[in-house]
């Protein structure tokens, strides 16, 4: 029986060699997810180590400047390691430790998940290997250094397009080679069951906090929650506890790269079709024969040809909307938030900010938008400077 379905999406399309590993992971997760001691340990880690709860900040200047809906920023960029990725990593590495694993492997795009994984490995005293597309190791050289500093081995992946998709391929290959002592810390709500569910549950803390914090500040639910979507982990985290609240619009912002009418795009829901890849059925950018398309975005973290199966289903049933945001729009939003609020967002998160710049003025002043600032933008400054024709050295 196929497991882990979100509508038609999800499942476990992986080699037989890995099946017992994912079954073992599912059993362990089911055992620990409601275990009070496990949850207590995780809460302490999230609060004392990662710095949760993250702030829900009223962006007053941005709100006034745009002249429409009230805008709140969920500050995942303030977490330890600078992004939401730590939420999932602490959960998975704690789980791996309970399972008796001594080594973790992880893919990374922008390097945020790799840094978070290397951090948790350092904290838990585990061996760590990171797989990162060669292209991304160049775009995100600072994060490569950080991972090494934290004690991880970083493997630059040269196969295929040498980006996030190829890093995932190589991680899957590595996992089939060494399973018994190794846990694959998948970084997004993708891959075979149970990963999309596990990662979502560990990221759902974002929407749980937004709900409580906004209730304290405004006494009500938001009208819209906006987040960027690559694989979709920060977005599902920001959406999850609002899925049943039908009045809340859920908006995912995909990386359109140079535009959805060009080949240089990573907007999966806008341009992809149903397929099977990386262990799951979902939407993928692909050609007419099912060959996975080389995708492009300025953002290494969104430069992925697929999307998590739960997002694909939220799209199918019309519960969430997915909009494309171009490189140009994201870079403008990156600069806008920096100069308006003094907050430098990750270029990934800037895709969500870019949509809010369009959306907020169309909404009444008594409406509320929450935008998830999934990570901070220090890592992107050099690349954005280059995008603007300024060659700075770090």
């Amino acid at each position: 029986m196929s497991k882990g379905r979100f509508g038609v999406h999800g499942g476990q399309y992986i080699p037989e060699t890995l099946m017992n590993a994912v079954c073992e992971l599912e059993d362990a997760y089911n055992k620990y997810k409601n275990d009070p001691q496990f949850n207590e340990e995780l809460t302490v880690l999230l609060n004392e180590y990662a710095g949760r709860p993250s702030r829900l900040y009223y962006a007053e200047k941005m709100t006034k400047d745009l002249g429409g809906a009230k805008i709140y920023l969920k500050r995942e960029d303030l977490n330890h390691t600078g992004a939401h990725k730590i939420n999932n990593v602490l959960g998975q590495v704690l789980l791996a430790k309970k399972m008796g694993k001594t080594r973790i492997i992880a893919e990374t795009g922008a390097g945020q998940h790799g840094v978070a994984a290397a951090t948790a490995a350092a904290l838990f005293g585990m061996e760590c290997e990171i797989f990162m597309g060669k292209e991304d190791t160049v775009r995100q050289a600072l994060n490569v250094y950080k991972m090494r500093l934290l004690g991880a081995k970083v493997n630059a992946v040269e196969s295929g397009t040498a980006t996030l998709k190829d890093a995932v391929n190589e991680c899957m290959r590595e996992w089939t080679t060494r399973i018994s002592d190794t846990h694959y810390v998948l970084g997004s709500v993708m891959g075979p069951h149970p990963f999309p569910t596990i990662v979502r549950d560990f990221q759902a803390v974002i929407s749980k906090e937004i709900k409580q914090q906004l209730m304290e500040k405004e006494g009500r639910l938001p009208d819209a929650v906006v987040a960027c979507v690559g694989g979709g982990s920060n977005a599902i985290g920001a959406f999850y506890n609002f899925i049943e609240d039908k009045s809340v619009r859920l908006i995912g912002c995909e990386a359109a790269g140079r535009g959805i009418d060009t080949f240089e795009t990573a907007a999966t829901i806008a341009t992809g079709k149903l397929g099977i890849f990386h262990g799951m059925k979902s939407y993928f950018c692909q050609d007419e024969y099912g060959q996975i398309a080389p995708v492009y975005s300025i953002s290494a973290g969104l430069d992925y040809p697929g999307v998590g199966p739960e997002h694909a289903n939220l799209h199918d049933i019309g519960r969430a909307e997915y909009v494309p945001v171009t490189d140009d729009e994201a870079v403008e939003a990156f600069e806008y938030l920096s100069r308006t609020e003094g907050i430098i967002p990750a270029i990934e998160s800037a895709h969500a900010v870019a949509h809010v710049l369009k959306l907020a003025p169309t909404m009444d002043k008594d409406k509320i938008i929450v935008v998830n600032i999934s990570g901070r933008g220090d890592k992107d400054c050099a690349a954005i400077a280059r995008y603007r024709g300024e060659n700075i050295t770090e």
Partner: protein
Amino acid sequence: MNIKDAFINRKAFISFITCGDPTLETTEKLLPIMEENGVDLIELGIPFSDPTAEGPVIQEANIRALSGGVTTDKIFDMVRRVRPKVHVPLVFMTYANVVFSYGIERFAKTCSEIGINGIILPDVPFEEKHEFSDIFDNMGVEFISLVAPTSDDRTVMIAEQAKGFVYCVSSLGVTGTRADISDSISGIVEQVKRTSSVPAAVGFGISTPEQAAHIAQYADGIIIGSAIVKLIAKHGEQSETAVGEFCSGIRRALSAVSD
């Protein structure tokens, strides 16, 4: 000829080749050569952009084939042309998305029309197989299952429902030649033979006549891929002699076991 006929009276030699590496004309020429040199069943790889079960050798073959412009339809046409000249069973090996995007029904129907006997999809495990196997079964194309060294308690469940032959993965990891192949798979092969009504063939890592003969002592057949693909990488469009000699060497080693 059916898949089971490949295993009659002798240890089966199953070869693998990536279609269109480096050209489809090369593949078309090599298929009869393999048969003449003692191959009993041929796996035809349809290249995929992201072959996650493959090691570097077959990954590179996929890249060579795809950059040469090979498509699923062109491979179907090649099989249609070559089928009258090749008598051994032919099975496709590719990835789920290649079949899914073509339309499972349409893909299976075409296989049946052009004389393909089976299909291997390494990223479709037991739990997901019905979406594919029900349709292929209806078209008379056998959906081949894999067992791995990590299958443990799953082996019996997989073997009981197996069609064609059971592909026993010799080692952890991805495809590619290995200097040492552990005999830990022998227990799994025995278990498969006890539970399954179809033969058990071992693949992943085998490259020499000695390894082939050793594994054939307990397996019904052996599968060789990367070693052949390496020869094609070296000799390109002029691979017939090298591939022919390699195959006959393996055949001789296997025949010694059958005696």
